[in-house]
C-alpha cells in the first residue's frame, strides 16, 4: 500500500459569540494552517448549520481532503452529525476528529481571551495530531431477527407485546409469576377513572392470549442471555425445563413493588397499621367495613435521605382510596397527612378537589416533624403537627394507612447483570439519556418501560410501553442494524494466548480461538479499550483510540 498524502482540513467554529466572543478564531485558523498535514483551514459562524455542513462537504471535494477536524463543541452531541457529513462527501466517517474548544475552552475561560486562544490552539494541535493517524474503518452490519422478548407481563409488558405483535413481529412474553397481570392483580380500582383493575387486566390478557403473534410463558425465569442486538439467545426455564429463545430485541418491563415499611409508624407491631396496597386488597375484597376514622400518611420511606426519590403515584392513590372510602361510608373521617401533594397534570388537581368536597381532610406535615402513631382508646391515635394551625393535633383512627414508595425488585440486580445494562442509584433501570432517550438502554437492542424504569402510574406505563415497542420495532422492521467500527483487534503475531483480555472483557467479546490466540467478536465489542491497556504483549489495537493516536495527542499537548 502506498503512503497516502495527508490532506487535513480544519474547520473552526465561532458558534455565534459562544466561541468567537472569547477565542480569537481567525488567529486559530491561521495557526491551524501551519500544522503539518493541514492543507485547508477555515472558520464558520455555525459549523453545525446547514450552511456550515455544506462548507465542509465543498471543501472535502475541492481540496481533496482526506482527514477532517472540526473545532467547535463537544463530540458527545455533534460527532455523529459531522461524521455523517464527511460520509456524504465520500470520506470514511472515521477520518474525522473533533476539537472541543467551547465546553472545554471558551465557556470555562471567559475572562481570559489570551490564554483561551492559546489553549484553543493546543486543542486543535492535539486533534490534528490524532487526525494524522486516523484510519478508515468499516461499520459492522448485523442482521436482525424480527422477534422480540418482553420480560414481565404487567400492564407495560403486555401493552408493549401487543403493539409489537400488531406491527407483525413475533413476541415472547415471559412472566415469572404463574399468571400475567403484574401489579394489576393486586390493585382494586385505577385512577383517574376509578375503573376496576380487573377489567383492564381482563382486557389486556384477553388481547395478549388471543394474539397469534404472542407466545406467553408464565412461571418462567430468565436464566441466561447471550448475543447482541439482532441475535440475542435467551435461555428461559419453566418447571425445570429449559428452552432457548432467539430474538432480535428485548424489552424490560419487570415492574416495581411497594416497600414494606417494617418498623415505621408501628407497621408490623400495631394492629390497624397497614400499607396502601393492603388497603387496596381490603377494598377489592369488600372487607373494609365502616371504620370511624382512617388516617393516611404519605411519603413513608420516601423523600428521605436513604431513599430520596418521590414515588409519584402515592398521592393520587391515597386520594383515590380516600374517595372510595368516603363514597362507601360518608360518615368515616378520612385524613391524608402529606408533605407535598403530587396532584400533577391535567386530572389530579380535579381529583384532589373532589376529595376535599367529599370531606377528606388534608394536613401537611414536614420531614422535620413527622406524625407519630401509637395505641389509643380502643384503637390507634396519630399525632401530627398541623403547620397551618401551628399546633399539634391528635387524630383517633381505627386504620392507619401508610403510603410507601414503589421500590425496585431485588431481581433487578441479577437481570441487569444478565443483560449487561445499568441500574441507577435507586436500583431502577437506567436509560441511555434521561431527556431524549427515555426508553433506550445504551446497549443497542434492549429497551425499558413501565415501573422498571421509575415509579409511574398505569397511563404513563402504557405510553412508555408503546414507546419501547416503537424503538424495538425500528431495527426489526429494517431487519438489519449497523454497528460502529470502533472495536478492538488482535495482532495474532504478538498474541501469546494468555487470555488476560478474555478475563477482563466485560462483554465477553474476547475469546481464545482455535489457534490458541485471542480474537475479538466484533459485534460484541463496545470499544472501551480495557483489553488494549492491559495486554502484556501490546497485541491489541483499539481502533480509533490506538496507542499511537493517543500518544500523538499526548506529545502534541506539550510540543507546540
Amino acid at each position, binding site marked *: 500500500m502506498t503512503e497516502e498524502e495527508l490532506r487535513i482540513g480544519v474547520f473552526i467554529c465561532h458558534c*455565534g*459569540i*459562544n466561541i468567537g466572543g472569547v477565542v480569537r478564531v481567525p488567529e486559530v485558523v491561521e495557526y491551524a494552517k501551519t500544522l503539518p498535514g493541514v492543507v485547508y483551514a477555515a472558520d464558520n*459562524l*455555525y459549523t*453545525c448549520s*446547514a*450552511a456550515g455542513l*455544506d462548507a465542509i462537504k465543498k471543501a472535502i471535494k475541492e481540496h481533496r481532503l482526506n482527514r477532517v477536524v472540526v473545532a467547535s463543541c*463537544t463530540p458527545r*452531541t*455533534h460527532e455523529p*452529525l459531522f461524521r*455523517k457529513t464527511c460520509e456524504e462527501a465520500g470520506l470514511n466517517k472515521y477520518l474525522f476528529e473533533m476539537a472541543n474548544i467551547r465546553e472545554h475552552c471558551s465557556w470555562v475561560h471567559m475572562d481570559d481571551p489570551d490564554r483561551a486562544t492559546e489553549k484553543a490552539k493546543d486543542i486543535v494541535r492535539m486533534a490534528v495530531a490524532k487526525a494524522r493517524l486516523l484510519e478508515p474503518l468499516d461499520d459492522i452490519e448485523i442482521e436482525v431477527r424480527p422477534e422480540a422478548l418482553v420480560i414481565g407481563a404487567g*400492564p407495560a409488558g403486555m*401493552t408493549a407485546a401487543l403493539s409489537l405483535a400488531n*406491527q*407483525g413481529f413475533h413476541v415472547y412474553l415471559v412472566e415469572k409469576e404463574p399468571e400475567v397481570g403484574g401489579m394489576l392483580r393486586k390493585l382494586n380500582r*385505577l385512577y383517574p*377513572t376509578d*375503573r376496576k383493575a380487573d377489567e*383492564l387486566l381482563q*382486557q389486556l390478557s384477553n388481547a395478549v392470549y388471543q394474539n397469534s403473534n404472542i407466545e406467553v410463558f408464565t412461571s418462567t425465569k430468565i436464566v441466561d442471555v447471550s448475543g447482541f442486538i439482532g441475535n440475542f439467545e435467551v435461555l428461559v426455564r419453566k418447571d425445570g425445563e429449559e428452552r432457548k429463545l432467539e430474538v432480535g430485541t428485548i424489552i424490560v418491563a419487570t415492574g416495581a413493588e411497594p416497600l414494606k415499611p417494617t418498623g415505621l409508624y408501628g407497621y408490623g407491631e400495631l394492629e390497624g397499621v397497614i400499607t396502601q396496597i393492603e388497603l387496596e386488597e381490603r377494598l377489592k375484597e369488600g372487607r373494609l367495613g365502616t371504620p370511624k376514622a382512617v388516617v393516611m400518611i404519605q411519603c413513608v420511606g420516601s423523600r428521605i435521605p436513604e431513599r430520596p*426519590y*418521590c414515588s*409519584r403515584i402515592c398521592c393520587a392513590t391515597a386520594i383515590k382510596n380516600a374517595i372510595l372510602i368516603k363514597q362507601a361510608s360518608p360518615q368515616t373521617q378520612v385524613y391524608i397527612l402529606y408533605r*407535598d401533594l*403530587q*396532584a*400533577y*397534570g*391535567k*386530572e389530579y*388537581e*380535579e381529583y384532589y378537589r373532589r376529595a376535599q368536597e367529599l370531606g377528606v381532610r388534608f394536613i*401537611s406535615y414536614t420531614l422535620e416533624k413527622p406524625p407519630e402513631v401509637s395505641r389509643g382508646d380502643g384503637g390507634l391515635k396519630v399525632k401530627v403537627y398541623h403547620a*397551618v394551625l401551628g399546633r399539634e393535633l391528635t387524630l383517633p383512627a381505627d386504620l392507619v394507612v401508610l403510603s410507601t414508595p414503589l421500590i425496585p425488585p431485588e431481581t433487578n440486580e441479577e437481570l441487569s447483570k444478565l443483560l449487561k445494562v445499568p441500574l441507577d442509584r435507586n436500583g*431502577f433501570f437506567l436509560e441511555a439519556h*434521561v*431527556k*431524549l*432517550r*427515555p*426508553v433506550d438502554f445504551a446497549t443497542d437492542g434492549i429497551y425499558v418501560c413501565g415501573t422498571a*424504569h*421509575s415509579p409511574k402510574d*398505569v*397511563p*404513563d406505563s*402504557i*405510553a*412508555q*410501553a*408503546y*414507546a419501547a*415497542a*416503537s424503538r424495538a*420495532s*425500528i431495527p426489526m*422492521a429494517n431487519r438489519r442494524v449497523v454497528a460502529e467500527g470502533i472495536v478492538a483487534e488482535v495482532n495474532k503475531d504478538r498474541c501469546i494466548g494468555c487470555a488476560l483480555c478474555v478475563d477482563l472483557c466485560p462483554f465477553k467479546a474476547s475469546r481464545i480461538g482455535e489457534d490458541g490466540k485471542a480474537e475479538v467478536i466484533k459485534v460484541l465489542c463496545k470499544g472501551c479499550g480495557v483489553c488494549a491497556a492491559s495486554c502484556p504483549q501490546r497485541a491489541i489495537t483499539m481502533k480509533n483510540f490506538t496507542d499511537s493516536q493517543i500518544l500523538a495527542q499526548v506529545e502534541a499537548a506539550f510540543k507546540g
Partner: protein
Amino acid sequence: MSVGSALVIGGGIAGIQAALDLADRGIKVYLVEKSPSIGGRMAQLDKTFPTMDCSICILAPKMNECARHPNIELLTWSEVLSVEGEAGNFTVRILKKPRYVREDLCTGCGICTEKCPKKVPSEFEMGLGMRKAIYMPFPQAVPRVSVIDEENCLYFQKGVCRVCEKFCPAGAIDFEQKPQEIELKVGAIIVATGLVQADPSIESEYGYGRYKNVIASLELERLLSASGPTGGELKRPSDGKHPKRIGFIQCVASRSLKENGYPYCSSVCCMYATKEAMIIMEHDPEAEIYIFYIDLRAFGKGFQEFVNRAKERGVHYIRAKPSKVIEDPETKDLIIRYEDINDKKVKEVRLDLVVLCAALVPTPENKKLAEILGIEVDEYGFFKPLHPLYAPVDSTRPGIFICGYCQGPKDIPESVAQASGAAARAAEIIAKKVVAG
C-alpha cells in the same frame, strides 16, 4: 390496507421524535410545522432539568437529522387545511405559506437579514430581542432558510425597499411567491402541537406588564441563554443591572379556580424554577433565590434529588402563595408580601427581579385543528385521549394519535416517550399496508 406514509403535525421535540421513529423504521413522514423552523419550545430553553444539558445542543442534532432524513419531508411555515378519509387512508390538504424566499436557493448566509432596515421584536426571544422583517428565527433554525414577515416588510407595506433582493447572492428572494396547496395521502396522523405560556397578568396582583422587573419564566430562559438577547448575562429589564435577589412565584394562573385561571397543574414549573435557580447561582454564586410554592412537585426520575441539590446550594424554598408584589417606584425593586404556610406569619421580602411561573397551556389553535381533524379537545384545549387510562396516545378518532404537551401537561422525556408511543400506534396501522404512499 393502509397507505405507507404518515403525517406529523407540530415540529417540537415530540413531533421530531415521532417523525424520526417512523422514518427510521422505513415509513415516509410529512412533518408539518406552522412556524418557519422546527424546534418548538425546547429550542428556546437554556438548559434542561435534572441533567442540565444545554437544551439546543441536544436538540439541534435531532433537528438536523429530520432535515437530512431521506424518509422525512419537512413542511415548515405550513398548516393543515383539511383531513378526509379514515385510518389507513387519509387525504390531507396542507397550506404552504409563502416565505418569499426560495428554499431551493437560499443558503442561509444571513446577508438579507443584515441588510434589512426593518426591526421588530423577535417571537423566539419572547419580545426581549429584535429580529428583522426578513429573518431566521434562531441561529440553529431548520431549515436554514430565511422568511419574510409580510406584515413588517417595507416592500409589502409601502411598496419600496427590496434591499434583501438586491443583496441576496443566491437570488433566492421571490416577492411573487403565492400560498401553495399540497395534497397528501397518509395512513396515520400524529398530532404534537405543544404549548404556550399563559399571560401572567391574569394574576394582576403580581404586576406583570406594569412592573418592568416582573417577568415570565419563559422570558427568563431567553435571558439566561448564551444565544439569547443578553448573551446569557442576566440583566433586569428596568436598568440592566445584575439582579442579586430573585424570587420565583409558582402556580401563577395554574391550580387556580379564579376566572381566567387554569385549574390543573402544569407539571413542570417546580422543576424548571429549580433549574433556573441553579443556573442563576452558577452565573452568580452570591445570588439569593426564593421560590414561593404551594406544593413542591418533584415527582419524576431524579427530580427530588435535584431539588435536594438546589437546597444544599442555598436556594430558599418558601411555602406560600404570595398575595401581592409591590414595586418601589424609585429603585424599581420589588417587595413580595406573603403568608408563610409553615408558620402562619405575614412576611415581606425585597427583591431585584421576580419571575412568574405562569400556567403552560395548549396552543390556542388546537380547537380549530381539532375541528379539521375531527378529534375532541377538552375545556382547556388539550386533545382528549380515547381513554385516559389505557389509550393515552390514541385520539378520539381512529388513525389519529396525540403526544406531548398537547395531550396533557408533561416534561420533555415524557413527551419523547409519548411521541415514540404514538409512532408505534401509527406503525401498527401502517404495518397493514398494501398500497404504496
